[in-house]
């Protein structure tokens, strides 16, 4: 029996994960060779290129949203994991405390400082700065800091009474000088060639100058210096270039039978605003036999306007009147990413870097495998 190639509808149906009121269906993908007799699903880069597309929804410095359409979850997940754990950033790693008479303990203060995200010139951060490795020999520690692997910062704050404060003032920030220590009080101390890469707008500085580090009272002092190094998120979350990097699958809402009138309004309220819109049934639709619109010309009907905004809450499936009129699902190969940058990288550059990183990893391992055979 000759095999018939799958119809367009069939291919579309295979991509949908079914979502019912209490259960889900068709979770795993089936596009592997040998799964469907007579069909070829072997890896073909040209077929992948034809089927794959990227769509941008938002592209700001701190937030980018885009869709990868036509790739497998294992690939999409690899990019997500790499963005979180394998893209290097610069963060405070060592804190040298000379004096800290504030109420915040040394180790807590050091931890807080480590979590502050910093920005700086991209060329310097990504090309000039290299990894710092802790020397195995403790005595070699002081010879391991170079201008290309260490950035030096300092924080010197003393709290004093403000003589000019109005009588009866109760606000500590007005009553005292430096009652609050903010991230903007951290000072960058360029060394060697760092001047070339990190000057002016490219200077190493906290992304958000208003991060509160500690609160002081008159007589208290914080005096410390810090070393920043490059690191990756798998070592410590402070090195992660993203606040979140996540994806979700594109929701699918399929209205199989018309939902009209008051029901349509109720149906729209089952979804977040903008997902379902109401349209008037046209005379032409009402004239079509078997369409379900007969005799309803001019009434409102529910139409799917923007399924991407849906949260797939399944609220509509709780109402008996909609149960047989709607099918919910998610598109298995449509990933809507949301990448929030902490500010050291541009949010879209993080993804590009993640793709490059995966390629590099595969290339390195290919060499390793060849070396293993040799």
């Amino acid at each position, binding site marked *: 029996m000759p095999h018939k190639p799958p119809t367009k509808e069939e291919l579309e149906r295979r991509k949908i994960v079914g979502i019912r009121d209490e259960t889900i269906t068709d979770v795993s993908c089936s596009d592997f060779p040998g799964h469907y007799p007579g069909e070829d699903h072997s890896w073909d880069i040209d077929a992948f290129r034809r089927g794959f597309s990227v769509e941008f929804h938002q592209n700001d410095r701190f937030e980018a949203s885009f869709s990868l359409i036509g790739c497998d979850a294992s690939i999409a997940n690899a990019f997500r994991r790499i963005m979180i754990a394998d893209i290097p950033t610069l*963060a*405070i790693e060592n804190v*040298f405390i000379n004096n800290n*008479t504030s109420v915040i303990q040394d180790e807590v203060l050091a931890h807080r400082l*480590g979590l502050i995200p910093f920005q700086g010139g991209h060329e310097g951060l990504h090309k000039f700065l290299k990894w710092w490795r802790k020397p195995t020999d403790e005595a070699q520690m002081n010879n391991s800091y170079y201008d290309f692997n260490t950035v030096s910062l300092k924080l010197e704050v003393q709290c004093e009474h403000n003589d000019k404060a109005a009588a009866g003032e109760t606000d500590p920030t007005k009553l005292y000088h430096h009652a609050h220590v903010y991230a903007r009080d951290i000072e960058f101390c360029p060394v060697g060639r760092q001047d070339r890469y990190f000057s002016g707008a490219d200077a190493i500085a906290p992304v958000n100058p208003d991060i509160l580090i500690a609160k002081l009272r008159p007589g208290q002092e914080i005096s410390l210096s*810090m070393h920043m190094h490059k690191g990756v998120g798998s070592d410590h979350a402070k090195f992660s270039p993203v606040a979140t990097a996540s994806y979700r699958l594109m929701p699918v809402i399929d209205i199989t039978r018309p939902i009209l009138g008051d029901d349509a309004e109720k149906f729209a309220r089952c979804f977040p605003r903008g997902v379902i819109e109401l349209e008037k049934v046209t005379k032409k639709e009402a004239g079509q036999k078997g369409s379900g619109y007969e005799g309803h010309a001019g009434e409102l009907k529910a139409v799917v306007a923007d399924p991407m905004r849906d949260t797939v809450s399944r609220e509509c499936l709780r109402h008996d009147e909609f149960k047989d009129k709607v099918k919910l699902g998610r598109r298995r190969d449509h990933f809507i990413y949301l990448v929030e940058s902490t500010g050291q990288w541009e949010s879209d550059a993080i993804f590009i870097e993640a793709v490059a990183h995966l390629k590099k990893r595969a290339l390195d391992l290919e060499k390793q495998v060849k070396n293993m055979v040799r």
Partner: protein
Amino acid sequence: MSREQYQVPTGSGSPTIGTGSFSAPTARDYTGDVGGVMYYMCGDCAVRVPLEKGAPIRCQKCGARVLYKERTKRMVQFEAR
């Protein structure tokens, strides 16, 4: 987080003098000619209280008996983790 490379403060000389015995490391000589005065912080009035060896543990100003040790003058290194 640890106070890396912490060493017990010792007054003079190295603590490894007199190897072989379990004698305590040469402790700081509090009665030495440096004056033997240690400063503490009064728990009540926060004044700096100088205390000599054997002196009653008491704030000379307010009489409070709770005294705190002063912070080390040394640099302390922490990992920001």
